[in-house]
């Protein structure tokens, strides 16, 4: 399944394959951290607000702990985001040299948003015990807003890569650049909503899962209940809204990117009406092992009972993305997303009818794995949309091979980056775990790690 792709890339510039792998590695890692950066401030805000309003010590403690955890995640996110801004130039000189001034403006606004986030996370983290309670709480608001704005800007660039606007090509030269058209392109808002909800699903399910594990281990106190319910509520809203937003985002894909749709739906020929194919792979020109639900493909892709999904055979060979990876990633996203949406609906319906699923170990176990599942769904969705756009980096305008440099030395860079990211992941996991262990043992303020005397660096608190 992979080898034909590899073979076809041999003739491409030396930097293409390592650049793609490097981008996949660093963007795939950063996107998880970005989810926490986007969603955590609002979750902390709700918890902190409850603490201030009801004078609830437990809620305040949870808010402060979440803030400390988010500090670690935000730090790693900030540096992995910096890696990405270097990589834009290092890996894709063809794209940045040609279209840097077309796609750059949203990044400038994203930079502003990130600035605001970095400033206020500093104030918020160090403001505990040093600021009046209400003023301190308000420091989260700019962070939460900046997270949304930043998401929009980044997604505007990605949406532009799918629907390039804001310039004209005259004899190969880029002219009539309109950066505002890029910032407000037609797909930006829907893509942003889809990603925004995904961020709440990832962060919400992950944090709720931590407290579900605590309950599984017998810690069934108010602290765990509260720590569970707030992120779970965020995740619930996001998980239930996501299928609708996803469906709206896909609307018109048949016209915009028929190759991507054909790959999503594994439609090898144009059938009217088209079936929905569940599972299955494409081998030697035919689909194998799929479960076909008649007509549903047309309904889901085109909101129609008869309008067909354009077939794979209508796409010229050189314009086809890797079909199996795109299809399976897309289905993983939809499948896991539906599972999560069903799970949260079940919980609230039963709770409304007076049954508490938190008493059941199977449900707690399911919540514990929901975080990793949400991450898988988000990554799969991202792979589906990015790989599904190939071989184009800017759809219909610039091929990915034209954007990459001829730099086979990038394989070394990829090796080094893999090692570095592994180390960083291990470091973050070790530190977060040891924070949790200390908190369980009742140590709220972590002693300063700078000497055997354990000077209190945490200050008053």
């Amino acid at each position, binding site marked *: 399944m992979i080898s034909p792709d590899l073979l076809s890339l041999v003739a491409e510039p030396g930097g293409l394959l390592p650049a793609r792998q490097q981008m996949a590695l660093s963007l795939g890692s950063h996107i998880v951290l970005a989810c926490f950066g986007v969603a955590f401030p609002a979750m902390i805000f709700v918890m902190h607000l409850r603490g201030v309003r009801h004078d609830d010590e437990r809620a305040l403690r949870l808010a402060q702990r979440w803030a400390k955890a988010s500090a670690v995640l935000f730090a790693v996110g900030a540096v992995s985001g910096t890696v990405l801004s270097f990589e834009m*130039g*290092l890996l894709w000189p063809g794209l940045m040299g040609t279209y840097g001034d077309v796609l*750059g403006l949203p990044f400038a606004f994203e*930079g502003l948003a990130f600035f605001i986030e*970095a400033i206020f996370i500093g104030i918020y983290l160090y403001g505990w015990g040093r600021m009046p309670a209400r003023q301190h709480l308000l420091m989260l608001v700019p962070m939460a807003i900046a997270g949304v704005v930043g998401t929009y800007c980044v997604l505007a660039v990605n949406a532009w890569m799918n629907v390039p606007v804001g310039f004209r090509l005259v004899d190969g030269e880029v002219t009539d650049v309109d*950066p505002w058209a890029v910032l407000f392109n037609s797909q930006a808002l829907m893509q942003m909503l889809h990603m925004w909800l995904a961020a709440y699903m990832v962060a919400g399910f992950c944090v709720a899962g931590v407290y579900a594990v605590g309950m599984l281990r017998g810690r069934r106190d108010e602290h765990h209940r509260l720590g569970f319910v707030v992120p779970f509520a965020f995740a619930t809203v996001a998980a239930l809204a996501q299928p609708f937003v996803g469906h709206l985002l896909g609307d018109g894909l048949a016209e915009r990117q028929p190759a991507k749709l054909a790959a999503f739906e594994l439609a090898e020929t144009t059938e009217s009406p088209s079936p929905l194919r569940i599972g299955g792979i494409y081998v030697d020109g035919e689909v194998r092992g799929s479960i076909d639900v008649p007509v549903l493909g047309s309904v889901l892709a085109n909101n129609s009972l008869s309008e067909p999904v354009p077939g794979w055979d209508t796409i010229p060979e050189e314009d086809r993305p890797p079909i199996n990876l795109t299809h399976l990633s897309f289905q993983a996203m939809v499948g896991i997303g539906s599972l999560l949406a069903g799970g949260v609906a079940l919980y609230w319906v039963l709770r409304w009818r007076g049954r508490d699923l938190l008493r059941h170990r199977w449900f707690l176990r399911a919540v514990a794995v929901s975080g990793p599942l949400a991450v898988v769904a988000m990554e799969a969705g991202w792979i589906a949309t990015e790989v599904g756009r190939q071989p184009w980096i800017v759809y219909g305008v610039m091929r990915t091979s034209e954007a990459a440099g001829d730099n086979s030395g990038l394989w070394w860079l990829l090796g*080094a980056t893999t090692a570095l990211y592994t180390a960083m992941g291990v470091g973050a996991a070790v530190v977060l775990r040891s924070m949790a262990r200390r908190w369980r043992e009742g140590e709220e303020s972590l002693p300063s790690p700078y000497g055997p005397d354990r000077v209190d660096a945490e200050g008053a608190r």
Partner: protein
Amino acid sequence: MSLEVAVAAALFVGVVAYAVLGGADFGSGFFDLIAGGDRSGARVRTLVDHSIGPVWEANHVWLIYVLVTWWTGFPESFAAAMDALILPLLFALLGIVLRGASFAFRKYAETLGQARLFGVVFATSSVITPFFLGTVAGGIASGRVPATGREDLWSAWVNPTSLFGGVIAVGTCAFLAGVFLTADAERGGEPDLADWLRTRALGVGVVTGAVVFAALVPLTRDAPTLAEGLAGRAAPLVLASGLAGTATLVLLARRRYEVARIAAVVAVAAVVSGWGVGQYPWLLVDEVTISAGAGAPATLQGLLIAVGLAAVLVLPALVYLLRLTQSEEWTRH
């Protein structure tokens, strides 16, 4: 002022801000590195942690601002510089990543062993990173970034101007940090710690000043365009930097720490601005001018709007943060 020069100026404001604010952060790593053993160095490290903890992420964003403004405003020269200077940029990036992550990890590390490991990584990478960024500046300033296609991986940054640039960057960062940390220690009610830092900051300042003067000789031969600019248009800035640097040393010696901070900032801002003014109108010296390298006018206008928004939205918040950290209330534990 033309549109593209306005954007180049806005870009350069980011370079100066990163040199001053990010520089003071990086320099703190130098003092962390020479603080001594676990027990004897604990107070310095606690001070470093406390001083840069709330601000390092905000200070770091200036780098992203510079990169984004560069690729948006002057895309082709960005791609050219990334190509020619790939090695030092990657080393600097490695340092930035290791430094940021290990700083956050150290703060919440569980055992002394863990904290020591993260601490060493933080301190070492803090010192190494400005060196490579300095070599990048030297490569551009000495006209070694070709507009189209690099010659090899090394020549753009292994040369006299780059190496001096690297050493000066490390020294300037350490000097800035020394002045700020000394003032922090004094304000935090630890006069003996302030004295310890003061001696070292003075030493770093004298050495850095000497290196700057020593660099002037090879610079005239190795980077003639820049040297000409420094002696001509940028001469007042170079002079101002020398005066402010000397004033900082005198103020430090006389224990006037609060005022010394301002003098140190002026010295660094002036020397970095001197570089920018000195190489004007070149974007990549001897290769691409600012007007030739500029992107689409509509984008440049958009960038200026973004910069205006930054001045309204980000600057007040940043000033608020910096004022908090320099206040009595936040300094005392």
